[in-house]
């Protein structure tokens, strides 16, 4: 019986090649999209789920309120870990992870940059990064020990045993390799090339017990059977006991399974995070698959007249309805199976591009039987979804009606096929509108005045001896005509590394906790960056040596401090007095989609990490870079000349939105593509069934144009209805999306007009090919057939 079903299914497949191709291709594209989305999601939800003790691992988060707003953040004081250990009985052990930093690492004649995390000695006991060589217990005890990953060890030592070898880091630290661990998998938040012991950090004097310095991540391993709730209850006002400077707020422990997907809080309540993307893409994937299934349903039921006779005969010779449903489901599963094979090929072909796009290394494990089982289940499911309605529809035919030869499908105003087409195009139109709005929002923010001149502006991190030789570098850059202006700053112009609510000024309210971005620059900052000076002057140490204790404010900061005449005011930060010498217009430090924050730019007494320099436009960029490299190599010989163009760094601020835009465009394209394939199939079919009618009309004198419009009109009506349904939905969704941006574009009418025009044009092109073909055919042919 089953064999019989598949045999007939296969013959039908071959008999109607066009329909089969549309069905298989449409389903395959839909299935491939769904598989890719599934791979992405399963990778996202697998983050840090491989740790053996994952059920007991938590991250400590701060919770505090500022000016009435509750904030949560996951950088903690270094001292927190020991306080947790001693005060919270639920906690078995803690481990801290400091920011990963790059270290110039040398072994013999080999030099590499190595990304190092500084961690507590308990790190390898809490987290599961299997130790390949060396002693897991003591690996991170010794202040001059270092743990390498397998690939770093291979880079430095090849196949030799690295244990006990001495490495030189940043040309000053001598460290001995104590262990080699497996490379961290890419679905872990911990990405490192080597681990340095916390003891090393302490030995350098980098440790501190200041409760206001939230700079490290603290993780806790609970005792088996302990409740996190009871630990959290004890942590709620934890700062009261320890933090003498600011004894408000506390901490909470955040479970490992929520790190990747949530970790986003609004007013102290979990909101948003990666999970939103997961939800959106789950829905989008389901919709694309559904649209492909709808094609199958539509084409199968449209073909029903051809199958009706067969259904009638089968019923007469003894088939029960369930036999027929089985047969039709068999056919849809066969088609889904063929589509499933094709979709795997599509996935395999597009996976590299997909990985580049998502920045992941997702792959299909073909040796995993579970993956195959999932794939088979997916095919079965797709076949069942796609086939259920046609099976139900076709198996319901009455033999006496269909065998009389007078059987005609009902031409009611609303039939399911039309509803399904409307559904497909509604999705497609929503996606097109979304794409346009996202693009518009990106353009809007890109056209926003960023407040400085990005052109020919570069920055370089003060690595190695560059900091020591800064003045020499600066002088050579200027004297050789490479740069027109050079400034040392605390952070790149595109990144805010520091902020504080601890700034003091005359007239500050005691409960004012306004957050200021904190930036430092030594000299000619306004000139180098191309900022707009509103009042006062730029830093100029040559003319005004006191400028090392001067500060620039932006306009928001002036407003926040309530100065009517800011120049000459004295503010306090880090226990130092700073005199205001100038006011600049706000520039975009963080997101171009957000409002600018109050900002202070402190003078040469600050701390510095970066050189900014503006290239001399009279030389070509490549000449400038080549000459600059020589200078940097001269004064910082061990380090590579790693520079960044500010305009590129600024452009990367749009990356997430651009990805969103590309994804929306991709999905809109796929949806349109699949929907149009279905529409094409329906138009083909319709032209065939109305062959005779067209013949009669032509004999009666109808023109090709009138027949074409007659045949296309019905489909265009459906697209128009879809447009009317989709527009308000898209408007609501996009309004919701734009709400997340402080600096946002408006949703204009032209977006809708363009979308309507576009979708009608696409639908018209799709259907008119068939309509014109039918319209120009010779009526003699169609009329003699009876």
């Amino acid at each position, binding site marked *: *019986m089953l064999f019989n079903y598949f045999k*007939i299914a296969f013959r039908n497949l071959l008999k109607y090649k066009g329909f089969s191709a549309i069905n298989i291709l449409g389903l395959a594209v839909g299935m491939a999209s769904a598989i890719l989305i599934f791979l992405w999601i399963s990778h996202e939800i697998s983050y840090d789920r491989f740790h053996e003790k994952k059920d007991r691992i938590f991250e400590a988060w701060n919770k505090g309120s500022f000016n009435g707003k509750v904030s949560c953040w996951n950088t903690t004081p270094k001292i927190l870990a020991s306080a947790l250990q001693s005060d919270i009985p639920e906690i078995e052990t803690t481990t801290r992870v400091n920011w990963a930093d790059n270290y110039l690492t040398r072994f013999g004649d080999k030099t590499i940059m190595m990304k190092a995390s500084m961690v507590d000695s308990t790190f390898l006991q809490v987290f599961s990064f299997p130790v390949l060589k060396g002693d897991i217990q003591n690996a991170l005890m010794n202040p001059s020990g270092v743990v390498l990953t397998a690939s770093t060890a291979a880079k430095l030592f090849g196949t030799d045993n690295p244990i006990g070898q001495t490495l030189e880091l940043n040309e000053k630290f001598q460290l001995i390799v104590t262990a080699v661990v497996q490379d961290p998998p890419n679905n872990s938040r911990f990405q490192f090339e080597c681990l340095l012991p916390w003891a090393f950090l302490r030995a350098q004097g980098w440790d501190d017990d200041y409760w206001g310095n939230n700079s490290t991540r603290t993780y806790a391993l609970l005792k088996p059977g302990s409740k996190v709730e009871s630990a959290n209850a004890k942590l709620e006002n934890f700062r009261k006991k320890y933090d003498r400077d600011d004894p408000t707020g506390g901490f909470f422990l955040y479970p490992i399974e929520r790190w990747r997907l949530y970790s986003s809080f609004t007013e102290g309540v979990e909101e948003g995070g990666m999970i939103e993307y997961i939800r959106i893409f789950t829905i989008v994937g389901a919709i694309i698959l559904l649209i492909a299934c709808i094609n199958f349903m539509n084409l199968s039921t449209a073909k029903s007249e051809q199958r009706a*006779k067969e259904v009638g*005969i*089968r*019923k007469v010779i*003894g088939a*029960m309805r369930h036999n027929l449903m089985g047969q039709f489901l068999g056919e849809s599963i066969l088609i889904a199976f063929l589509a499933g094979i094709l979709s795997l090929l599509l996935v395999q072909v597009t996976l590299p591009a997909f990985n580049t796009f998502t920045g992941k290394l997702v792959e299909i494990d073909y040796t995993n039987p579970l993956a195959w089982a999932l794939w088979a289940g997916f095919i079965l499911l797709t076949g069942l979804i796609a086939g259920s309605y046609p099976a139900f529809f076709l198996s319901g035919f009455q033999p006496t009606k269909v*065998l009389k030869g007078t059987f005609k499908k009902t031409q009611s105003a609303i039939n399911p096929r039309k509803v399904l087409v409307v559904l497909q195009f509604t999705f497609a139109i929503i996606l097109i509108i979304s794409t346009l709005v996202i693009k518009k929002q990106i353009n809007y923010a890109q056209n926003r005045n960023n407040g400085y001149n990005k052109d020919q502006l570069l920055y370089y991190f003060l690595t190695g001896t560059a900091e020591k030789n800064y003045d020499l570098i600066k002088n050579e850059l200027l004297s050789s005509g490479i740069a027109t202006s050079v400034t040392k700053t605390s952070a790149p112009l595109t990144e805010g590394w520091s902020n504080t609510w601890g700034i003091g000024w005359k007239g500050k309210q005691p409960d004012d906790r306004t957050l200021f971005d904190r930036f430092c620059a030594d000299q000619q900052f306004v000139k180098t960056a191309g900022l707009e000076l509103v009042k006062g002057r730029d830093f100029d140490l040559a003319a005004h040596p006191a400028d090392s204790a001067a500060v620039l404010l932006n306009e928001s900061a002036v407003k926040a401090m309530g100065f009517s005449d800011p120049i000459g005011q004295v503010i306090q930060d880090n226990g130092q007095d700073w005199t205001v010498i100038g006011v600049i217009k706000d520039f975009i430090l963080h997101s171009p989609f957000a409002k600018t924050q109050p900002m202070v730019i402190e003078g040469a007494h600050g701390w510095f990490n970066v050189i900014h320099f503006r290239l001399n436009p009279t030389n070509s960029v490549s000449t400038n870079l080549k000459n600059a490299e020589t200078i940097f190599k001269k004064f910082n010989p061990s380090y590579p000349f790693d520079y960044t163009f500010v305009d590129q760094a600024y452009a990367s601020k749009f990356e997430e939105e651009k990805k969103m835009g590309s994804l929306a465009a991709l999905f809109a394209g796929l949806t349109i593509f699949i929907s149009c394939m279905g529409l094409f199939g329906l138009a083909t079919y319709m032209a065939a069934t109305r062959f005779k009618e067209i013949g009669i009309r032509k004999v009666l004198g109808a023109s090709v144009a009138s027949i074409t419009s007659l045949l296309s009109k019905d489909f265009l009506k459906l697209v128009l209805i879809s447009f009317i349904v989709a527009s308000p939905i898209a408007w609501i969704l996009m309004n919701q999306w734009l709400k997340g941006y402080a600096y946002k574009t408006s949703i204009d009418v032209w977006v809708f007009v363009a979308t309507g025009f576009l979708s009608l044009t696409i639908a018209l092109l799709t259907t008119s090919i068939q309509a014109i073909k039918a319209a120009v055919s010779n009526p003699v042919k169609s009329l003699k057939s009876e």
Partner: protein
Amino acid sequence: MIKLEHISKWVNQGNNRIFLLKDINLGIEEGEFVSIMGPSGSGKSTLLNVIGMLDTADEGSYQFYDQPVHTLKEKQRSQLYKQHIGFVFQAYHLIDELTVYENIETPLLYQDTKSSDRKALVADMLDRFNIVGKKDLFPAQLSGGQQQLVGIARALIAKPKLILADEPTGNLNSKQGEEIMDIFTQLNKEDGVTIIQVTHSEKNAAYSNRIIHLLDGRIEHNR
């Protein structure tokens, strides 16, 4: 075998009720060979469909053997006719996608006959109608007469007690028609299969031992 009492069937057109069958009383015994005749639209095919349980009457009772068909549910009716009744059509109604062999075999699939039994039964049938050489051909590759032979073979494969034939020779030339009629006669005489055929042709009706004339949904003659 068949007992129809006061069978009526109608359609409503606006306020008018148009009778397709009106007050049909008919008994048919096992082993009879009956022809139903009448002009177009007199209700011949409707009557045949009602007898074949493909269609139901709006009024009246229908006894098939000891089963009150008019009270049965659709599923039970299907079970009943698939066991006892074979259908032959004017337009043959073979399944285009199946070969001759598969067309004949299909009713057995729906009766869950074992594979080995199926093979034997289909082989017998192919032998009997001399179409062994055609078993792998598709219907489109056969002449009308050959297609109807396959249609009859398919109707007989499940060993029905009753054959219902709706103008079985309507699309055939006279020689092919005679062949089919000879087969029916043989089936009726030698195998004791009851046959009811709808026909326009007096010549075909002459093969039967009883002719029922229908006019406007009523039985006019019953001899």
